[in-house]
């Protein structure tokens, strides 16, 4: 059950001219959040911008004795709302509604977890890694960006024992090309006998490519989608993704309540770019 917290900005750390991590004090949300869930953030009081902005929860924040006191987001500046968050000064209060949506599911027992992230798609994997490694699941992160300088926050993963495979489109770091390059190679190399569950978050084209790979190698895959959202609560039907129905036809599912995480096999990928 979501709550609306007028959350204080604890810190705002700029990672680059576009990327930043904004930390919010919001225990009520942070303690309830599960990996893959999101919050709806009101970037400005008043009428412009009018709508809240959906953001995946990045990190859980803890005080010195380990109590969860808030969460952070990994923000990329692309328009008016994300600009306001990029500029948010510590101390300001920003309404955050959450946790919202359907989280990632645990991999089958004995299965490894491979996470595939593009850009800010890294966000939901910080808490997923935390929860899975904490319960003995071996985790691996495939992380791609345009250039090496945009591969942020890897330090949040390696300490948890997560193996990180990098890829950059300009080849400045890790594999040269999309994140699907190392993923394809490792999927091919891995014996069918050792189970692995795939989790993807990032640009829509990337999700589709990862879903294809997973299907071809017969691996279970979940994708975290990012659709335009009016309400985040199931009220407006703006955030739909086309999914298959039991009866073999398809329908529009609201990604804010039935998602943002979907089983890749449930999505009708041909209508993905509609």
């Amino acid at each position, binding site marked *: 059950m979501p709550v609306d917290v007028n959350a204080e900005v604890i810190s705002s750390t700029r990672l680059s001219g576009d990327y930043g991590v904004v930390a919010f004090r919001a225990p009520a949300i942070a303690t309830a959040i599960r990996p893959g869930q999101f919050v709806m953030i009101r970037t400005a009081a008043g009428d412009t911008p009018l709508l809240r902005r959906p953001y995946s929860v990045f990190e859980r924040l803890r005080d010195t004795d380990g109590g969860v006191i808030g969460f952070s987001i990994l923000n990329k500046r692309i328009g008016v709302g994300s600009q306001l968050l990029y500029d948010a000064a510590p101390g300001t209060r920003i309404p955050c509604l959450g946790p919202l949506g359907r989280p990632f599911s645990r991999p089958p027992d004995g299965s490894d977890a491979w996470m595939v992230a593009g850009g800010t798609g890294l966000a939901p994997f910080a808490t997923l890694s935390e929860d899975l490694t904490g319960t003995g699941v071996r985790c691996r992160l495939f992380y791609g960006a345009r250039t090496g300088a945009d591969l942020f926050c890897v330090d949040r993963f390696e300490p948890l024992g997560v193996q990180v495979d990098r890829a950059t489109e300009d080849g400045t770091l890790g594999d040269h090309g999309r994140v699907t390059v190392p993923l394809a190679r490792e999927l091919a190399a891995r014996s069918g006998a050792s189970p692995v569950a795939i989790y993807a978050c990032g640009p829509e084209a990337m999700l589709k490519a990862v879903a294809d790979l997973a299907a071809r190698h017969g691996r279970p895959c979940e994708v975290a989608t990012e659709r335009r959202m009016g309400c985040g609560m199931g009220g*407006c039907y703006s955030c739909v993704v086309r999914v298959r129905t039991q009866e073999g036809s398809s329908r529009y599912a609201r990604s804010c309540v039935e998602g943002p995480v979907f089983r890749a096999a449930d999505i009708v990928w041909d209508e993905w770019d509609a």
Partner: protein
Amino acid sequence: MTDLVMGLALMDLSVQIGALRLKNPLMSASGCFGYGVEYADVVDLSTLGAVVVKGLFLAERPGHPPPRIVETPAGMLNAIGLQGIGVHRFIREKMPELRARKATVIVNICGTTIDEYTEVARILSDVDGVAGLELNISCPNIKEGGISFGCHLGNTHRVVSAVRRATPLPLIPKLTPNVTDVASFAKAAEDAGADAVSLVNTFLAMAIDVETRRPRLSNIMGGLSGPAIRPIAVRMVYECSRRVRIPIVGIGGITSAADVVEFMIAGATAVQVGTASFVDPFIWGKLESGILDYMRRHGIERVSDLTGTVDVPGEKRT
């Protein structure tokens, strides 16, 4: 009566819409509150004057492909395309919880033909817990039905009369603002036996991505809602209140208790809140306490006493 002697206890928020008594003037706007059940965990549905659910046709509808919304200055465009589960599944899957939550349910009904409207109305008339019907003749996002009824006086009168004969439930035709003289449509609805009218639905609008030169909505056009339209909606409510005797449900850009009061002073008996409830799903309690505060400050006992009390010096100057 002064602030001092007037306590909360004395204040009456109830309003009357035809045979329907609402505990307060606050309703969710159709299409902005799902089927109500989506909000049952965050809002006590029984505390709303009424829950107006998403528009329903006889059968299910897939709706338009995304993108379905785009933000605009102090507003948003939507072209959902009335995705919906149809009246039968609604009765089976949603009404039980709505009844259990003690919500006052008003169903927003749609049709592509007069027969479909009347059929949907007839089916809902026998359903326990359905308190009233809002007749959606104003959706700008579907060509057939919707607007084609709402933009022609004759069709408006025809469809309202037909549905009126089909149901004993309180009937509230919802008017489109995309007409020259909205008051004449309110009058046509009244003449056809409506118990009230609600207005406004969204303004037909369009936004284009200049980088791609493509419309920002898959449906090309969509409906404008939100604070941006409030002054036009207030004007239309005022005009209608001068033309008809039936109650008016005011809709359009309400975000605060002051906005609710403004619509009521302009002539509304009750209001609906849509877009603002996206921004703040907890808005209902804030609106109610804001209205009570206003009543206290102004020594008003019954909120219904506000309706149509705009102080207009003589006739409109020209």
